[in-house]
C-alpha cells in the first residue's frame, strides 16, 4: 500500500465522515460546520487528483464563499428556541432504504462498466492549461458564466431586500 493510497483513505474518511455529519446531525448549525469538513476533504481530493488550481478554487469559492453564506443564512433564520428545526419529512428509515438502493445500484453499474483507463502519469501544474482553455476553447461559456453570475447577484439582491412601499 503506497503513500497515496493511505492519503486517499484518510481524505475519504474525513470527507465521508463530515458528509455523514451533514446528513445526520440534528442541529442545522452542526450540519453547516460538518459541511466545511466535507468541502475541505473534496478540495484535498482535487489536489490528490493533480488538479491543484481546482483545489484552490474549491477552497476559495466553497469554503470561503458558499459556506460563509450558508452559515449567515443559518444564523439569520435559526430560532434557538426551536430545537426541532430539522425534523424529517420522509423519515430516516424510508430515506435510508431509498438511498441504499440508489447507492447499491450505482456501485453495481460502476462495477459492470468497462472503462478505458490510461496511466495518468505524474501530476503537473494545471493553471496555465486551464487559463488557456478558458480563454480559447471555453471563451463563450466563460462569458455566459459571468452574465449568469451577474444576473444571480442582482436577483439575490432583488429577492432578499425589504419591500419599500411608496
Amino acid at each position, binding site marked *: 500500500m503506497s503513500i497515496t493510497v493511505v492519503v486517499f483513505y484518510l481524505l475519504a474518511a474525513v470527507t465521508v465522515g463530515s458528509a455523514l455529519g451533514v446528513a445526520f446531525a440534528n442541529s442545522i448549525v452542526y*450540519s453547516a460546520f460538518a459541511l466545511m469538513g466535507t468541502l475541505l476533504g473534496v478540495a484535498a481530493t482535487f489536489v490528490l487528483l493533480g*488538479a491543484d488550481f481546482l483545489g484552490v478554487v474549491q477552497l476559495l469559492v466553497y469554503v470561503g464563499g458558499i459556506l460563509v453564506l450558508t452559515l449567515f443564512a443559518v444564523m439569520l433564520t435559526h430560532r434557538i428556541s426551536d430545537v426541532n428545526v430539522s425534523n424529517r419529512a420522509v423519515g430516516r428509515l424510508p430515506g435510508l432504504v431509498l438511498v441504499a438502493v440508489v447507492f447499491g445500484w450505482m456501485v453495481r453499474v460502476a462495477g459492470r462498466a468497462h472503462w478505458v483507463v490510461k496511466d495518468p502519469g505524474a501530476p503537473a501544474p494545471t493553471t496555465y492549461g486551464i487559463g488557456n482553455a478558458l480563454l480559447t476553447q471555453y471563451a463563450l461559456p466563460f462569458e455566459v458564466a459571468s452574465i*449568469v453570475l451577474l444576473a444571480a447577484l442582482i436577483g439575490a439582491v432583488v429577492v432578499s431586500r425589504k419591500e419599500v412601499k411608496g
Partner: protein
Amino acid sequence: MADLSLGHFVVLGGVLFALGLFCVLTRRNAIGILMGIELVLNSANINYVAFARYNQAGYDGQVFAIFVIMLAAAEAAIGLAIVLGIYQRFETIDVEATDRLRQ
C-alpha cells in the same frame, strides 16, 4: 498514483452523492436541503476530475468542474436569498409549512 484506481474516486463520489440525496430527502429545513445539493454537486465534481485524469482528457474535466462550482455559487446566492425572503414572510423555513404561494 499507479495503485490508486479510478474506482476509488468513483465510489467516493457515489458515497457523497448518496449522502447528499439522503440530506435532500429527509431534511425539512430549506437550508439543509441546499446543503444536500452542495454535496451532490461536489460528488459530480470529483467524478469529472477523476475521469478526466484517468483518461488524460486534458483540462476539459477541470474546466467543467470550475463551471459547476460557479453555478453552485450562483445557486447558493439565489437559494439563500429566497430562503431569507421566505423566512421574512412566513417566520419559518420548514418546507412543509411554506406550501402556499401567497398569504
